[in-house]
């Protein structure tokens, strides 16, 4: 099994991507709604990731 080294950002990005795809697929009824919801979830994930990252950066001083 090959070993993979990802940065925090890359790992969180992949996590957000996969989670958003599934949330979009299982929650909405039409393909257009699924796509919109998946993109919205991904944007929220990224906003939380970057926001919390900066918050921890400033919290550490």
């Amino acid at each position, binding site marked *: *099994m*090959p*070993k*993979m*080294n*990802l940065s*925090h950002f890359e*790992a*969180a990005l*992949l*996590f957000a991507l*996969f*989670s958003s*795809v*599934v*949330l979009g*697929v*299982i929650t909405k*009824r039409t393909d257009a709604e699924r796509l919109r919801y998946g993109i919205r979830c991904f944007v929220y994930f990224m906003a939380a990731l970057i926001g919390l990252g900066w918050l921890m950066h400033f919290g550490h001083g």
Partner: protein
Amino acid sequence: MATTSGKAAELTPPASKWAPPVLLGWLIPGGGHFLLKRTGRGSLLLVTVLSMFLLGLMMRGAMFQPQTGDILTTIIYCGGFLGDLASGLLYLLATWLGYAQPDVAGHVHDYGTKFLVAAGLINVLAMVDAYEIATGKKD
């Protein structure tokens, strides 16, 4: 009373209707959707769960073993074990073939462990979706 239980029985769909897609969905991610002829959604779920699980293994994530102790230990280790187990055949094959890693320090390993659990939790969502489709609660 008899009428109430009769109504409840009417509302609860028979297990023969939903158990096969849910069980197949547990064993093979997206399998329930394939059984219900939702191949597009099933393929997306299969690719997603499989990718997360393989990435978790490649990041050398650890598989949880159930442990009891204080409440936090019990929740984390038993919950983590259930999350891992929810990946179905992927988990069973990985442990059987010796890919279960010991828990080591490091952010990549830590992310790997979370990816393995998240793959199982996503599969639980897929199983719930398959249940709702099988019982007619969803298209």
